[in-house]
């Protein structure tokens, strides 16, 4: 990472701008997103993925195994497909059966292991999973796409890519579990694993291979349904198919409980943006940026989003992006061009457009950004500084947690929600304070109110103990040790704390979900209310066939953000 002095020279954005919850809720995937990083690593290191078993019946039910060979190891992605009645098909986290269940296995899949997987993977949370598994997940068919695509291929017709505008996938996952859940391998044991040590890399490979399975299964069913007429799916359409994901409140606590990791991710993104803004501007660069904007414009114009508010935000992006393209095509190529653009965006354009432009700017400096890729790992460990003068703790709160102190918690709207964990699959939920039951079991996810509590107690203690150190104060206040530890640990970071009141009536959990999903690399955000969102991963990404072909031009291989629907002139291949 760059030091603070260099960052200040580069004009890195301050945390009061970057960490605003609403702004974070408009982030788009970027070159630093984990899907992009993973695919670059795969291509660079010549990873190979092959089908080892494809044992499906005519209807596509059975099992499949894909082998992943890297320079460092061998893995297998094991998939079970089963018939599911319509009544059972649900994206709700409380569901207990799915069309597909799958997992990533480290090493080989011997018969005994396969038996254990067949017994437990379909049960997901209710099973005891094998410690050779790095990831487990499940997925349901997209009702609107899968059957239609089978019919089209069976009848010898290519499906229309425009059908993927609303849901850009054939399968939608609901939860993707890693890190020791239900008996699988702990994430910390992957620290020395050169393939999957980066955050969420193992989860992303599971989705990437599932995408291939969804296409293979589709073609298999079409072939069995009409052997004489069925055709293979056009390769451009294959590329335009992603993997869906349906995410709810379960994802929200991660962002609050991993502030050091979040700080690191955002810091990398902000460094990349700062580097891009000071990069040399020439005509080629200007043209490249225009072409990226035009492609993003196409992506937004094609997105058919059900949610009214998000659709409206997308309409604004389209309008503003058209203006930006027009401006870029007319202004001279000056050294300060990117500053002119971002200053204008901050002053006059919507948050969503601002952050979209920032993501596109990051595309301009691939070499500099790639140096930041390895920086996205950090150990989430917080330690007390017991000998810190208490007055210093007070100063840190006033300096770095001013946003928390400014929340007026006497206002009913400011303390409207409380977070709790439901007994149903132990998932986090939101309750209304004073109305819903469970407030006595509230999760301490809202950092602002905790900081206020610490501040009040510290201030009172200092009145009689002006030279006290932190531990002297805490000996009488054991219940706030966690909050003090967090404040001290975060004092050397800029971007770990999300600046919003998670109790506030107008707080949108969706913003938290989108923040993480953008870092993972999700696109086509389609919220269903404030607590649930559907997204797509890997839409437009190179296929496994392209990866296996060992691409020479890695820049082109990596250029798949904000993909537009392919223009299929000949509907038959």
């Amino acid at each position, binding site marked *: 990472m760059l030091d603070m002095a260099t960052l200040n020279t580069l004009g890195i954005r301050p945390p009061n701008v970057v960490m605003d919850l609403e702004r974070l809720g408009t982030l788009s995937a970027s070159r630093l997103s984990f899907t992009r990083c993973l695919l670059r690593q795969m291509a660079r290191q010549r990873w190979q993925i092959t089908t080892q078993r494809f044992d499906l019946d005519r209807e596509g039910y059975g099992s499949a195994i894909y082998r992943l060979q890297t320079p460092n190891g061998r893995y297998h992605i094991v998939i079970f497909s089963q018939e599911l009645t319509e009544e059972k098909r*649900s*994206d*709700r*986290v*409380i569901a207990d059966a799915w069309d597909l269940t799958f997992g990533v296995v*480290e090493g080989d899949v011997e018969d005994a292991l396969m038996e254990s997987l067949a017994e437990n993977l379909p049960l997901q949370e209710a099973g*005891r999973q094998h*410690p*050779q598994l790095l990831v487990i997940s499940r997925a349901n068919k997209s009702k609107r796409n899968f059957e239609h695509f089978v019919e089209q291929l069976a009848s010898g017709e290519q499906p229309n890519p425009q059908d993927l505008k609303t849901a850009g996938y054939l399968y939608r996952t609901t939860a993707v579990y890693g*890190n*020791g*859940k*239900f*008996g*699988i*391998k*702990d*994430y*910390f*044991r992957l620290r*020395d694993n050169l393939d999957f040590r980066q955050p969420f890399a193992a989860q992303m490979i599971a989705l990437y291979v599932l995408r291939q399975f969804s296409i293979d299964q589709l073609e298999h069913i079409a072939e069995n349904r009409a052997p004489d007429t069925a055709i293979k799916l056009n390769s451009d359409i294959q590329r335009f198919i992603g993997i869906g994901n*349906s995410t*709810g*409140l379960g994802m929200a606590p991660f962002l609050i409980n991993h502030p050091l990791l979040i700080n690191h991710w955002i810091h990398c993104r902000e460094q990349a943006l700062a580097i891009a803004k000071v990069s040399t501007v020439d005509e080629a660069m200007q043209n490249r940026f225009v072409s990226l904007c035009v492609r993003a414009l196409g992506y937004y114009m094609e997105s058919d989003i059900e949610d009214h508010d998000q659709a409206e935000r997308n309409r604004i992006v389209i309008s503003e992006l058209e203006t930006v393209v027009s401006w870029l095509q007319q202004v001279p190529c000056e050294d300060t061009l990117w500053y002119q653009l971002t200053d204008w965006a901050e002053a006059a354009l919507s948050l969503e457009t601002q952050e979209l432009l920032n993501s596109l700017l990051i595309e301009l400096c691939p070499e500099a950004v790639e140096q930041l890729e390895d920086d996205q790992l950090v150990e989430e460990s917080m*330690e*007390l500084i*017991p*000998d810190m003068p208490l007055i210093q703790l007070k100063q840190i709160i006033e300096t770095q947690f001013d946003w928390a102190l400014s929340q007026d918690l006497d206002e009913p709207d400011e303390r409207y929600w409380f977070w*709790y*964990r*439901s*007994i*149903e699959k*132990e*998932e*986090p*939920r*939101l*309750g*209304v304070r004073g109305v*819903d*039951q*469970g407030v006595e*079991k509230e999760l*301490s996810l809202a950092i602002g109110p905790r900081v206020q509590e610490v501040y009040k107690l510290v201030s009172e203690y200092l009145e009689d103990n002006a030279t006290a*150190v*932190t*531990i*002297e104060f*805490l*000996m009488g206040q*054991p*219940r706030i*040790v*966690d909050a003090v*530890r967090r404040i001290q640990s975060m004092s050397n970071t800029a971007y770990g704390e999300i600046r919003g009141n998670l109790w506030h009536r107008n707080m949108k959990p969706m913003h938290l979900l989108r923040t993480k999903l953008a870092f993972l690399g999700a696109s086509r955000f389609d919220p*269903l*209310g404030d*607590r*649930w969102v559907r997204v797509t991963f890997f839409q437009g990404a190179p296929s496994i066939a392209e990866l296996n072909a060992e691409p020479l031009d890695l820049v082109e291989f990596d250029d798949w953000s904000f993909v537009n629907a392919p223009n299929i002139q000949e509907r038959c291949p």
Partner: protein
Amino acid sequence: MKVSYNELQSLSRKAFLGIGFSEAQADDAADMVCWMESHELNGLVELNEALQRILADDNHTKMPELLYQDADLAIIDGHDMSVLQCSHLALELAFAKARARGLGILKIRHCRQRQLIMGYLARLAHRGMNITALWRHAQTPLTEQVVGFRANSTVPSIRIYTLEEVPDENKLNTGITVIMANHVDLLPTMRSDYQYDLLARHEESELLAIEVRRRASGDGFDVPSQLWEQLKALAQRTFVESFDGSQLGAGPLG
């Protein structure tokens, strides 16, 4: 049953919260148990004992009491609580004294499952402190344990021995003495005028090898089913029963 590190840590933490531990207490207690078990030092046995003792105690509002302190020394009464409940802040206090004065001494009287304290000492050592802790397991025969961490090391040296000659003053001692030094190694070296029998000896290298082997193998922990079920039952105390409104967060109905 086999469980992963993350499962044991997460469920223990929730169970401690269910008992009434504070957030930090629960975090630290879960880490102490996992550290012990990771180094094959009977963390689960100690956890089981601690749970039975805590659950049998009706008074859940007890807190450790600071009996005396000066710039170099602190004496705490643990009121017969487990070190999972009464040690983490006391140790931080000693840490602060050692940082300020070069040497800090802590005595915790009346505390239980003292083995588990090694889990927190490992964290303090990792923060650059040399540490020695000593406690007695039994009075007859007199059995003592000494644990020493080198600054910045993640593992200790351990000695457990019996003394044949019992001192005149030999009352039941459920206390623990911890010495921290900023700049001086405090590793245990057996040197005594009294006749002693070494019962157990763990070198840093041995424990480090266990740490590396367990990390590489990916094996989880073998947790007795009864203990696991008890942890689950305690953790459930932190969850909210399902009601109509709670289903709203479970995902789209459509």
